């Protein structure tokens, strides 16, 4: 469904998905999804509610495993390794592929402990290294200046936008190269949203980002490539400027112009 030709020839693909079908029990939610995610670019997944974009995103770090009676068919490879192959270490996968959720969910611990949580459970005990990792992550998430004087304050005291950037720092702290973002700004006010979008622009130099958003303008602003999902199917994927000005499929055009969804 997705032609390689929409991408420049030498672009490295870090995630390849081929004929992916997903089932919640007996209900099928994804149909034959074949999508490529290029390295160090931002790919946006758009589509109306219930089209499967979040479900697809959660397949990429196997978070759907937590849903009972769920089943994945087809191939999903990250860095040329099939992540659903038997014997795959899901813990390692999630170190490699980080996730930020729609509703920010900082732990009721200090800011420092939030960011250090990931490295700590992966075995990092050295306090100096932990402090370095925490500072680096908070800087990358563009929130260091705001919290550097109160690292041991409770994270719940931060504003919504700050909490979300904290969650991004927390995800970065385990050292992933891919970042999955599930509608990261949908619960935030416009100003905070803008900061998140700026942050995504900064992060893309070092990370591969896949972002699910129901806000088309946001997708147009931040992403390099956009994939349009509808009712569990991948309708179209193309370079962002092209898909928003000259989509190939009529469904895509109808969605983008607001005829439905």
């Amino acid at each position, binding site marked *: 469904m997705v032609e390689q030709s929409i991408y420049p020839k030498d672009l490295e693909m870090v995630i390849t998905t081929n004929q992916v079908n997903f089932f919640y029990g007996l209900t099928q939610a994804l149909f034959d999804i074949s999508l490529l995610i290029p390295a160090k670019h931002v790919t946006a997944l758009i589509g109306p509610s219930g089209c499967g974009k979040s479900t697809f995103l959660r397949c990429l770090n196997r978070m759907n495993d937590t849903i009972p009676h769920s089943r994945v068919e087809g191939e999903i490879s990250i860095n040329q390794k099939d992540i659903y192959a038997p014997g795959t270490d899901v813990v390692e996968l999630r170190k490699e592929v980080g996730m930020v959720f729609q509703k920010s969910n900082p732990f009721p611990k200090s800011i420092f402990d939030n960011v250090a949580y990931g490295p700590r459970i992966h075995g990092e005990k050295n306090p100096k290294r932990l402090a370095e990792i925490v500072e680096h992550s908070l800087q990358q998430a563009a929130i260091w200046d705001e919290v550097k004087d109160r690292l041991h304050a409770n994270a719940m005291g931060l504003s919504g936008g700050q909490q979300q950037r904290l969650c991004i720092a927390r995800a970065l702290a*385990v050292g992933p190269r891919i970042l999955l973002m599930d509608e990261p700004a949908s619960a935030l006010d416009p100003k905070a949203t803008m900061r998140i979008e700026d942050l995504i622009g900064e992060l893309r130099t070092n990370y591969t980002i896949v972002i699910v958003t129901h806000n088309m303008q946001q997708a147009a602003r931040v992403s390099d490539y956009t994939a349009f999902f509808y009712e569990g199917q991948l309708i179209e994927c193309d370079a962002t400027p092209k898909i928003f000005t000259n989509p190939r499929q009529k469904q895509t055009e109808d969605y983008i112009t607001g005829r439905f969804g």
Partner: protein
Amino acid sequence: MKNNAADKFILFSLRFITYAIVLVVGYILFDIIKNGAPALNWQFVSTFPRRSGAEGGIFPAIVGTLYLVVGTIAVSLPLGVGGAIYLAEYADQGRFNTLIRLAIITLAGVPSIVFGLFGLGLFVLFCGFGPSILAGSLTLACMVLPTIIVASEESLRAVPKGFRDASLALGATKWEMIRTNILPYSLSGMITGSILGIGRAAGETAPILLTVAAFYLPRLPKSFFDQVMALPYHLYILATQHPEADRIRHMQYGTALVLLLLVLGLSLGAILIRTHFRKKFRW
């Protein structure tokens, strides 16, 4: 407003009944405290009974109750918390889950004397423990298990789902997630539930009637296989079967007061713990 007089009367009656109950509870407490307090002194709680309990103290009964409580918690807490964690966090086998829940509901409804019969049949006779702290604790543990499971499960479910997702997405294994990111926040609820369970265990007579309780033991127990005195049973015998029951009201009231203070003290402790932890972890 229609029917103002009728409404006022109804309101008045509702209020009256409610506060009548409050008064009754208050009177019960008052009666026991008033009549029991004079008997309460250091000797009463620290010496052995003499003349079959007509004089002296109730020290061994207090110790016995404490032993039983410790034994009960030692068994029921791990099983209860473990079961609750399974139900709240794992629970992926539909039929098995329904079975467990049915079992919990059933256990919660079993009359205390039936637990006594059960303890007698299984622990005292079949396992050969004889009437003992072991048999009594195991029986009481079975009885309070549902309370602990329900309270623990509730406190586990109160932890927001987002914590689990975030933790797993950062690469924690399931048990790591539970241990580091759920248990710390649900601990207070579990402790509260356990203390309420202890309170029940401490005050129950029927289960220990047939499995451990003795009325007049000259020494403190030396092992788990010994019988023991216990506050509820002591009160019962003093009040109903002692030859001098009429004349030793102060001993009876004293025992009742000590038992009441123990149980109410535990409830109060549970509430204090709950409020303290509520302030600590807000989300």
